[in-house]
């Protein structure tokens, strides 16, 4: 299939999205916003998988299924992470990572 767009453009877009997610992961101090940065990172990886699948190996389906499983893992990760965040909020009445330091030695 020819979309008229070089493969590299998709990869560069996914790279930018990945590193924006990393920036958010490093600078944010709220647990929910950190979780949102992780979702950005996982999403950019999905774009990479699908682009490689479509452009380099169009007769196979590995990329499609791998990103399907990545989405499933991201969903379960978000569910468990939000359960943990709600539990933390109940105990500390805050979800700021700098205030949650009970297990710090």
């Amino acid at each position: 299939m020819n979309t008229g767009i070089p493969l590299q453009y998709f990869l560069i877009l996914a790279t930018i999205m990945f590193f924006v997610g990393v920036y958010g992961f490093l600078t944010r101090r709220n647990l929910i916003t950190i979780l949102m940065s992780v979702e950005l990172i996982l999403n950019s990886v999905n774009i990479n998988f699908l682009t490689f699948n479509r452009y380099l190996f169009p007769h196979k389906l590995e990329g499609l299924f791998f990103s399907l499983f990545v989405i499933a893992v991201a969903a379960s990760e978000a569910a468990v992470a939000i359960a943990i965040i709600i539990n933390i909020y109940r105990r500390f009445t805050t979800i700021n990572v700098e205030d949650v330091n009970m297990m710090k030695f």
Partner: protein
Amino acid sequence: MTINQLMFVLFSVMIIVFSILTVTSRKILRAAVFLLFVLVSTAGLYFMLNYQFLAAVQLTLYAGGIVVLIIFSILLTSQIDQKFEPVGWKKSLFSALGVISGAFLSIITILDYSFSATTEAAKEVDMHLIGKSLISPGNDGYVLPFEVISILLLAAMVGAIVIAKKGSPGKSESQSLTQ
């Protein structure tokens, strides 16, 4: 400029702008809505790559599931009209330096590498093929990861309920288990 290229430019500008806004916005509910925009434009990219099934999964699971879950937890745990404190300049400067150098290195590598495509004919990806592959144990089948992911989803469901459940007042869950 063809319509395809125009759509690609539109989607990529939306993705880049909204992902930067997601990680820099100082209001948490706005950040969640910007994340929703990023995920919807990613679904548009999947449509452009001709993976309709995955685009639908992206829309229903990410935009419909995960973002709603995140917004619910924001409403439960945060003051939504409260602004975050601005990030310290030292932290944001060094993070930006590291991130920009990493992105620069990756983009140089991508542009330098010569990708070679196969010459085999493209396979039409329809629902019939996806469903057959997901449960076939053969050469092009993915039944083992499918079963593993179902166990993972079950475990995540049970774990999320157990973690978020309210313990009985005065006595926590672990104490009542050990007695």
